[in-house]
């Protein structure tokens, strides 16, 4: 009975257009934001900030990026990690080569580099569809990483191809403690997530979804598939690029091109599928799930079997359980955690009466 929209009427289309039309949701969101902006920095340990929350946030951003492309515009991509790499190396080079470059601008420029590269690799999507396109985006994945390793200019001629991020300094404040890094990451991710939400609920998002659901019909009602697809590639790569730059600047500090390998691309793909294809919320849930689950399993195995299990077997069991859980979740809800959440809300709305 607590979760009801009864009695909440919307008097204008503007009200109906709100991101969270139900009052309880708005309160919930405010509470969540307060927790993450205020309570977490106060109480979370360094381990939680550095090893869990920051990566979850960054991966969420990358997942939003991929979700825009795959979930909303329907173009399956396996190259997200490469676009992250472009963002990271792009931002690094802007910071390195232009004196006094403000971090945020470098971040955006890094994202824009990724967007450009994304558009270039998105061009084939005009003709190629489905899994064919997915495999084609692998070309981007391998080529970009190869180029970053091969051409030392990108890594400022470091002998091993590794770059180490410059210190982040915004308006004289050095972001060098876990809390500050966390807050910076959080703010950027929240703002970009909001923008993404806006995009997908506006005409742009509808164009993407139309192309995704049936591109012939979309063209017949006047949507140019080329523009829709390329804009999705651009926006998606931008998000991945920014995530990549954050990955280098607020998370790892030093990155190598191979760190942005196919495994990472897949990981991001897992996030959106487990979280929910075509859902911004799902990107967050998926990222949290994919980052936390292996850690949880690792810790869990150590505590229950503490030394009684051959070492190799323990690690393999983690793998088995991880794979099994992915399958299990897909079977329970093929549309991902976000859908599970909406279904739960639907049930709650009806509760305590069935149907």
């Amino acid at each position, binding site marked *: 009975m607590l979760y009801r929209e009864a009695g909440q009427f919307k008097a204008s289309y503007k009200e109906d257009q709100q991101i969270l039309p139900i009052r309880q949701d708005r309160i919930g969101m405010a509470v969540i934001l307060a927790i993450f902006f205020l309570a977490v920095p106060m109480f979370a340990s360094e381990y939680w900030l550095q090893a869990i929350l920051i990566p979850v946030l960054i991966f969420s951003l990358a997942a939003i990026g991929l979700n825009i492309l795959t979930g909303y515009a329907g173009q399956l991509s396996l190259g997200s990690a490469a676009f992250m790499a472009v963002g990271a190396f792009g931002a690094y080079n802007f910071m390195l080569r232009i004196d006094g470059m403000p971090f945020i601008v470098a971040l955006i420029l890094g994202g824009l580099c990724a967007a450009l590269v994304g558009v270039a690799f998105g061009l084939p999507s005009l003709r190629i569809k489905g899994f064919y396109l997915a495999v084609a985006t692998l070309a981007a994945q391998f080529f970009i990483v190869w180029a970053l390793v091969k051409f030392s200019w990108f890594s400022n001629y470091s002998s091993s191809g590794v770059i180490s991020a410059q210190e982040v300094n915004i308006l004289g404040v050095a972001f060098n403690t876990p809390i500050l890094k966390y807050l910076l990451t959080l703010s950027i991710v929240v703002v970009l997530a909001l923008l993404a939400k806006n995009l997908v609920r506006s005409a742009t998002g509808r164009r993407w979804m139309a192309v995704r659901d049936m591109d012939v019909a979309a063209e017949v009602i006047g949507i140019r598939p080329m523009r829709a697809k390329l804009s999705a590639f651009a926006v998606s790569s931008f998000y991945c690029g920014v995530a990549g730059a954050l990955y280098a600047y607020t998370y790892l500090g030093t990155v190598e091109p191979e760190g942005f390998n196919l495994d990472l691309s897949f990981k991001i793909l897992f996030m959106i599928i487990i979280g929910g294809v075509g859902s911004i919320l799902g990107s967050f849930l998926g990222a949290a799930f994919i980052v936390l689950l292996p850690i949880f399993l690792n810790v869990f195995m150590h505590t229950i079997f503490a030394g009684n299990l051959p070492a190799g077997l323990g690690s393999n069991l983690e793998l088995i359980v991880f794979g099994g859980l992915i399958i299990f979740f897909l079977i329970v809800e093929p549309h991902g955690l976000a859908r599970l959440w909406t*279904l739960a809300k*639907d*049930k709650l709305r*009806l509760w305590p009466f069935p*149907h």
Partner: protein
Amino acid sequence: MTNAATANAASAAPYLSINNVEVIYDHVILVLKGVSLQVEKGSIVALLGANGAGKSTTLKSISNLLGAERGDVTKGSIEFKGQRVDQMTPNDLVKRGVIQVMEGRHCFGHLTIEENLLTGAYTRSISRAELKDSLEKVYHYFPRLKTRRSSQAGYTSGGEQQMCAIGRALMAKPEMILLDEPSMGLAPQIVEEIFEIVKDLNSKEQVSFLLAEQNTMVALRYADFGYIMENGRIVMEGAASELATNEDVKEFYLGLAGEGRKSFRDVKHYRRRKRWLS
């Protein structure tokens, strides 16, 4: 014969009977709210009703195709020839002789028309010659398919696909066919033809039919018995001839208001019908 369906339904175990079936999609959307109906052996039963009444859902619950759409039969039972079939796989059902022709064609787009038809005979283990016979029979019913036999089904016209879907079901040599909107998208001549085929199969080969149909006029002409559904419930049932003369049915399903057929041009749009239930 049709009276038997009403009067004596309880005494002899009916051929196909659905008792108080409830269906829920996605764990929350309640679509069928306790539907019961019977089909006698060798009869043609029409299931009528507006869009969204739950006709297709009813048929799918019989043929057990709901699972694929995350639908569930949560209550009630379905019996065919006195045996519970609600837990059987569609394959078992087809082997027992119950086959469904789904709404919206669902041909195998990349297979040719002929391959489509041949897959229809999957459950039968028959000789090449028999297979050829069956194929010829379908071509006899639908000559148009013969001329398009080697085209990929995905590229054929809507009507051709419809014929293909029906033909494919016939290839399984079923005893009972669940036909979902067979007339949809077919030229009037073909509609007549298809119903003639239905009648033919029914009288010559004792095939029973349960058909969901919007074209009430034709459906009631060929059916023995009819059910009318609204909002997931059966709201009316009776011999086809009785239904055809029922005033309400006449008005709402046949477009015949008292004085005879009204031109589509003259119908007022704000006229809302009364509801039987719900």
